[in-house]
């Protein structure tokens, strides 16, 4: 199927691109934290906002782990719908996080990006896991 032969590498590349941007944001998160705070802030406020962003990034990495494990183990590698959904979600996330990083958006927007572009593919991945290992369906 020619679709899968282009969809699998596309999905892999978009996941890796999303992962790279998440790691970049992890190392340069200072500006995003400052954008979420008022002009005058205390060190405690900074630390709490920083903590929130670190938690969000850690959750993203966890969801990546779920999805990559499903992808590399073959559970969802040849599933067309999951491939399309994952490619679309991670591509949108890459563009959104690019803006998040360069335009120094606030923290609240990150939660929205997380919900739409990281949670959705991971949830479908978990459903597929349950389908393959629990209900013994063929992984296609």
């Amino acid at each position, binding site marked *: 199927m020619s679709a899968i032969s282009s969809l699998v590498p596309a999905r892999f590349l978009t996941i890796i691109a999303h992962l790279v941007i998440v790691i970049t944001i992890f190392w340069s998160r200072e500006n995003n934290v400052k954008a979420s705070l008022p002009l005058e802030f205390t060190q405690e406020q900074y630390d709490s906002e920083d903590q929130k962003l670190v938690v969000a990034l850690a959750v993203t990495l966890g969801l990546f782990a779920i999805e990559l494990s499903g992808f590399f183990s073959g559970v969802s590698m040849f599933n*067309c*719908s999951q491939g399309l959904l994952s490619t*679309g979600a991670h591509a949108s996330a890459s563009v959104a996080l690019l803006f998040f990083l360069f335009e120094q958006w606030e923290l609240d927007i990150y939660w929205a990006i997380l919900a739409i572009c990281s949670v959705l593919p991971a949830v479908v991945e978990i459903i597929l896991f349950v389908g393959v290992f629990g209900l013994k369906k063929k992984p296609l």
Partner: protein
Amino acid sequence: MAFYEVYSHPALIRYKTSVCTKATLFLVAILCLTYISPLLVAYRSQGFWTKRSTYEEQPVVRYRYEALLVAATSPLGDHVTWSTFPYLNNMLGPNFRIPAVSVREEDQNQDGKLDLLIFKLQLPLRADEQVYSVQLLLTFSYQLHRMSTVVMQTLAYVQHSSSVPGAKLFIGGDLRLQQRAPLAHRGLNNIYNVSVIDGSSPFVSSYDLENIMRSYQSRNLTTVLSCPSPVWTLGRAEGSPFELSAEIRYPLEVISYRPGFWETIKLAWIQYVSVLLIFLWVSERVQRFVFQNQVLTTVPVAVEKLHLS
């Protein structure tokens, strides 16, 4: 013989599916991404809705032949006054002095709108008087016609003082429009079509320069004489009058206005469609890949009949 393409035409394939399928979901998602993203791109890069634009116009300015002159004739503050308002002149008493005035307006480029006011005034003085400061107020009627019609009465106020008595004052400048807010793009604006100085008032307070300037400056649309360098000539001969000469030009104005609904929509539409073209192309490629390669199952229906039946 060489083999070449003589003719080609596209063959249409329709992909059909029922409403509650993954294909429909995909279609909805891709349509949202295609039609909403250009709006976001165009809006976030600033300037989507034009709030202010400019246009050029030569205003129709006429001098109204009203003037008010106050000249200080001693360092202690004695002054002489002259005006074109009979009520004020009657109240001045011994401070009233009549100068010789000559006024001319010229249309230099023959476009039917006046361009220059030449105002010459000669103030006779007594032997013991010298002029130390001059305050002159001239009124104009000002009209704009190109976008909204603006009809108003404005003034030019000149003030110059020196610790050294002078013989001549020359003022050369432009009558510039000052706006606090952009003008409308159509309609009539004549709220300022009232005399700057109320010539029919018998009260001295209506001819007080401070009151006049205070109520004038509270307007949103005024004119100001921009004269960066008045020339105060010294050395008045005995017995000769004080000369005041002013050349006021009416220049081409760059006026800022709020664009109307259709102009704003036209400019926003241009911005939206030019970004939409890119997203449409990308979406077309993605949809062709998805439906041609059956990534989501649909029923392809070829429209061209393959055989005669």
